[in-house]
């Protein structure tokens, strides 16, 4: 039965945001496995993992569209509607960057990563996974803040944002080192181009995670 009074209450977009963040986390894990598979030669499951990421990305996209499509004019929220959209876009860009990286690999799966660079690649991947995992926690802590507006809770969220920024910085430094090593090892130009571009794309993942953090900072501004 429909009750007129109830139409004033609507599904919170933060439910969707949370769900989306959890999807991003799942993608991060699949991405990590795919990267391990790619870096270690003679791994056959790379394409499966890439397809898993594509599937997850599609699901996340549906969530994103659901959030955007269900905020009619006249919706009053704890944050500005467009702040929410901008945040969502950054959180979604994390996914896109992951997909880009895997796509880039799939264009030239052979000959893989030279042994000298493998360790650095693992470190870079780990450095980008960490900020992604923080996103889901950030959303849930921010929701708690919107529940009680306590300064203590606000600083919890701000701490996460600060951590994201630091992590992005770490990932940047790893990216620099890796690129330098790629050029130093230069064998053929195509490999150099492929590896450098791959490094940059992976670096973007952390950039977008940091951007999401910055957007969150704007949302919790007093």
């Amino acid at each position, binding site marked *: *039965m*429909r*009750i*007129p*009074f*109830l*139409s*004033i*209450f*609507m*599904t*919170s*977009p*933060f439910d969707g945001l949370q769900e989306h963040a959890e999807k991003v986390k799942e993608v991060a894990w699949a991405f990590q496995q795919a990267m391990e598979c790619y870096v270690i030669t003679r791994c056959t499951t790379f394409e499966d993992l890439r397809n898993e990421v594509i599937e997850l990305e599609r699901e996340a996209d549906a969530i994103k569209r659901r959030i955007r499509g269900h*905020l*009619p*004019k*006249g*919706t*009053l*929220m*704890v944050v500005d509607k467009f702040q929410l959209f901008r945040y969502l876009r950054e959180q979604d860009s994390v996914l896109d960057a992951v997909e880009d990286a895997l796509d880039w690999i799939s264009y030239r799966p052979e000959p893989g990563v030279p042994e000298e660079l493998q360790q650095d690649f693992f470190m870079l991947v780990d450095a980008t996974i960490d900020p992604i995992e923080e996103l889901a926690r950030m959303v849930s802590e921010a*929701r708690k803040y*919107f*529940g*009680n*507006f*306590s*300064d*203590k809770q606000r600083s919890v969220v701000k701490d996460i944002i600060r951590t994201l920024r630091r992590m992005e910085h770490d990932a940047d430094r790893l990216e620099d080192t890796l690129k330098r090593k790629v050029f130093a090892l230069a064998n053929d130009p195509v490999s150099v181009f492929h590896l450098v571009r791959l490094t940059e794309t992976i670096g973007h993942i952390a950039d977008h995670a940091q951007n999401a953090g910055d957007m969150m900072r704007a949302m919790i501004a007093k």
Partner: protein
Amino acid sequence: MGYETYILVIGYIFGFYMSWNIGANDVANSMASAVGAKAITLKQAVFIAGILNVVGATFLGSHVTDTIRKGIVSTHILTDPNLALIGALSALLASALWVSFATWKSLPVSTTHSIVGAMIGFGIMAGGVSVINWTKLGGVVLSWVISPLFSMMIAYLMLKVIIRFVISAKDSFNQALKLAPFFISLTCFVVVLSFLFKTPLGQNLQLKTHSVVIIAVITTILLGFLGSLLVKHLVKKVNVNRGAEEIFRKIQIGTSCYVALAQGANDVANAIGPLAVIYFLVKTGTVAETIPVPTFLLLFGGVGIACGISMAGYRVMETLGTKITTLTNTRGFSVDFAAATTVLIASKMGLPVSTTHAAVGGVMGVGLARGIEAINFRIVLKIMLYWVLTVPASAITSMAIFWLLKLIV
């Protein structure tokens, strides 16, 4: 049995049907925040709403009744008792039918507005457009705009106070426990004041205004402390992790009673106003400027509302708990407090306002205070549309029924 007895019996039936409708239609709106915030269960909601609507109707509900009748439609059309009887009957039936239709079609209408519209329809049929007191009607319409705004303001301020002094505190649980007497007293204050003002009980005590206020203050402070002792007892076993919300969850049991009480006091007049006219006409043959509403009629209306609640309200409320997921107890408390206070004050001032609109206003206020993750503000437009629609719709229905009845009688 004479012809008048038949009329009276029919009046009782229509009056009961109208009050049943009020119960079925309005209870979901008034209990929504308590059920939605999981402060009370469905069964408890039905129980509380049923009992306290009767109590509110019987003990607090005598004042509004005559204003609806005499304020909007000039009394000289009532000089013909026959016409007045038919008019009151058609008004009752018309508004009840319109509310039933709205409940069926899920339209956000107000039972109060329906009866006002039906009275206007009868007035126009009986004496032409000139019998409508447009200034009074304007005042009533204005109160429809003001009441949700007022409720919105109270809810906004209340939530801001709660955020500022309770839930943003480091130890919000103990802070809420400490301030519980304040919130409980505040809730009791308006109820106690209403009991003392303009009710048979208050008049028997023959108190002056200032002594009423003093008595109310002392009583409410006492009640506040008693209430907080009760809350302390109730929350002994709960986990502290939920913080202030847990305390407010217990307080909200009290405020949902407050809402039911206010609703009974306010809404009973919608059904009992015309019925009182019929009753008075049948008993005395004339109708005066103001007529006393016998307590048993109020009780009758209250019971009718309670029947509506227990028969149809349960099904309506079942959807509440699943639909409202974003409301927490502090928010629910603010909504309840604002809506009930608005309705009770308006009802004491003799203004026929809608409980539903006061509740909507309360939710808006909480939304404006950024208390709910997302609410749909556009419902205001929809509600306004049905304001504009309800009055003519029930007026026309009432006119048609009046015309039919006149043909028969």
